[in-house]
């Protein structure tokens, strides 16, 4: 990866859940680590998220959800990403997501799920490492 290339991240809140403390704290932490962070705001449809990722040409998408609707929304987002030729974007999930659901989500192409209590440094390192392998 080009040294000059700033990492661009889309922090997105799919679904109807308005709890965005985690998303915002993470957005700030990523900014403070030198990344360019595009925040979508709450109550986003899968279509809106994928359009934003497409236009903003982001390197990674962080999906934060606490409502339990990930079982429907995440597959939909992954399907749309593939349809628009964005299958190569690193997609990560966070929020309240039961461990039982994780294998299924990973099968869809979501690289990792970060639960409550994860440090932002862990996430930053994960993003940097994953992107440097590209």
């Amino acid at each position, binding site marked *: 990866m080009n040294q000059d290339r700033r990492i661009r991240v889309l922090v997105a809140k799919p679904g*109807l859940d308005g709890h965005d403390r985690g998303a915002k704290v993470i957005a700030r932490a990523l900014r403070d680590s030198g990344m360019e962070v595009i925040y979508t705001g709450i109550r986003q449809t899968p279509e809106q998220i994928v359009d934003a990722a497409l236009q903003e040409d982001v390197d990674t998408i962080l999906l934060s959800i606490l409502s*339990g609707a990930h079982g429907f929304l995440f597959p939909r987002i992954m399907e749309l990403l593939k349809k628009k030729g964005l299958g190569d974007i690193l997609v990560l999930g966070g929020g309240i997501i039961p461990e039982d659901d994780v294998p299924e989500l990973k099968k869809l192409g979501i690289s990792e799920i970060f639960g409550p209590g994860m440090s932002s440094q862990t996430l930053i390192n994960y993003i940097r490492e994953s992107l440097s392998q590209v």
Partner: protein
Amino acid sequence: MEEDIEKIQEETKRWNKDCMGKHTFRKVETDWGMEIKPLYTVDDTKDINYLEEIGFPGEYPFTRAPHPSMYLGKLWTMRQYSGYGTADETNKRYKYLLEQGQTGLSVAFDLPTQIGYDSDHPLSQGEVGKVGVAVDSLADMETIFNGLPLDKLSTSMTINAPAAILLAMYLAVAEKQGIGPEKLNGTIQNDILKEYTVRGTYIFPVGPSLRLITDIFEYCSKHVPKWNTINIAGYHMREAGATAVQEIAFTFADAIEYVNAGIKAGLRVDDFAPRISWIFNTHNNFFEEIAKYRAARRLWAKIMKERFGASDPRSWMFRFHTQTAGSALTAQQPLNNVVRVAFQTLAAILGGAQSLASCSFDEALALPTEESVRLSLRTQQIIAHEIGVTDTVDPMGGSFYIESLTKKMEEKITDYIERIDELGGAAVAIEKGYIQQEIQESAYRYQKEVESGGKVVVGMNSYQVEEPLPKGLLKVDTEVGAIQIKKLKELKTDRDNQKVQSTLLALRKTAEGYANLMPPIIEAVKAYATLGETCDVLREVFGEYEGTSVI
């Protein structure tokens, strides 16, 4: 006495120099920037006038308690926040909780219900029944309260943007049970301002939203006199990262906006102020939480009496529901949460709560199971009956530290309210992003402290262990959505659709004018118009609020 104080001051100086001076010790500061002294003495409370500032329980300024006899007269309402899946499942959970000794209900609605979408709306996909029970029409409400005598219960409903519609459904259920509205006890949250800042389940713009709220104030003051028409919430701001001081300050600022709206709508302050209730977040810092509630009681009494000129003592009275802090729960070593919840529950009681929900230990992972929710109810019951904290009123009153902290918090809260007044009130402060920004700063500071290890979270950033994946978590049936959609289809064929159309048309006409919205909403609901249909009529007339996430 004055000589005593001087002597104590001298002795304190001596003690600080001779004794503390020889030791190294931790310096402590609150989240909101006050240095906590190693020792508090009578010197710290000497400027507090007991009769004016502390007084007696049940009397102005209510610092010690809103009621004279407090828990000696009546225990708090034990009211666990619950609801999930279908109306049927929720009805079963409520019956179980009441059998276990719970004394009030607290209804959690799913997100589509909270945002006024029916279960068959495209945006509802994946969300139906997830964070609460799905309600599409009066039929669902009838099922939720089936076999539960509404005149014997108090019911709290966490519903905001469509509060008027859910209240109308509740009134209709009562009527079918043969119970008049004057006999109903309970609360709707009905607090839209904090939806714009931290919770996100808004529908309409500010103006029409405030109209809905004041219409409810007016309607209930005439027809449902025992109903708490608003439950102004600090809980969610705290969850979003606010400090204890910010929690009270921003909630009071919102409250001032609502009271102003009521007065502007032509209501007398004493007609609706006694029906204001509150929900706050009882967090980890034990003494700070107790002092927070004492400061809030005193300050609200002053605001109502001095700022709004309320003359009915019930208008001055700050009565609150609280829930322990969901955000303080850890996903790591979840059983540790049992201990956290117990301490928070105790702080809520020592702070003088009227109604209380204790979180369940598994809630950082999923919705609570029957067993975990019973354990948190038992926690309340143990505090109520076994450990003696309910044997006298306000046992913490008079503690040098507590009284001094109460005073300090009151001052800091007042500073914030003045700042928001300068900005033009809560609605303007929200539009400018001031409140959101302040909360986010606190949230980010907290996160950095946790990550640097400056703040210890047991089991999460220290004392970690390798643990197996948690087992036995509650899973909401993924079929709930399909079940609701099927029920909706049946409803739409079975009901009198002409009546639905005519009641919705009447609602539209009222919405376009100025008359109270409650009567036409009640008519529409009784005709089994769905929640989504009713909200759509209002959406068309009022427009929709556009989110402006401040970051």
